[in-house]
């Protein structure tokens, strides 16, 4: 008498390991490309002077990095306004 065949089970798909092992690229993809987008604005002050008004859809670089690449305002010669 032939043995009864067990019902064929589909192999399981490759499942992700627990949260702490989520793929780094997947995490970065989600935090950078998914989520609520808000159009913001930021005024950056330095030494009490408002230097930059930035309309932000996305911050492409850190503000500190951006500030390093901006020339300081030139001082006016004495006697000129």
């Amino acid at each position: 008498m032939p043995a009864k065949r067990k019902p064929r089970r589909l192999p399981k798909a490759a499942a992700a390991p627990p949260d702490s092992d989520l793929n780094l690229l997947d995490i970065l993809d989600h935090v950078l490309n998914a989520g609520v987008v808000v159009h913001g604005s930021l005024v950056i002050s330095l030494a009490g002077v408002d230097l930059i008004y930035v309309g932000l859809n996305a911050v492409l670089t850190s503000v500190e990095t951006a500030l390093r690449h901006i020339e300081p305002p030139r001082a006016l010669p004495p006697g000129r306004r």
Partner: protein
Amino acid sequence: MPVLPYCMLLRTAGLKLPRKGVGGRPVRRMTEADLLCLYSEGLPPASAEAALEFHRVLAAVMKQASPAPFRFPTVLELEELRRFLHLNSAHFARQLERVQQAVQMELRITATGEPQQAAASGRQYLAARARARKRLQSGARRVRRALGPLARRWRERETAAGLRCYVLVDREQVPRFRERVPAGGGLSIQVSGPWPPTEFLEAL
């Protein structure tokens, strides 16, 4: 004062929320009607480490509630965030009620096994692409059938590598979801998640 908002969620009693966020800064709360918003003060560094810290805050929230995350790095003035919540709290509260206690699981479906042959003509190339697309979509349908009611909602997107499926799943059903996703049929199916249910939140 610049702030980095993490996410919005429904105000629920008894939630234990993370205390520290990006850069070790305290996670603060702002409430508006039925909505709770988490944020930290100060400008975040634009680094992968900061993005991971941002994700950890969301992951801690997701263990208890379904958040609507902000995209990283969103930087606003504190008053802008307050105004944003005041204007949009009803919209996001409705969205979050629809995905309450649910998470987003994702499937990346790619074809395997078929060697790529150089197409002799543009028509052959397009025909091969169409066949590949049909196989992937057929695979997605098979997965969706296998999941049954575990998949509360379903979205698909074609990508350069294959098909990406987003599935809304009740939080406590995630282990069953992972067990029920079939493989085989000449397709590779990679499961990831849980993620915040961003694909199932309507934009403003």
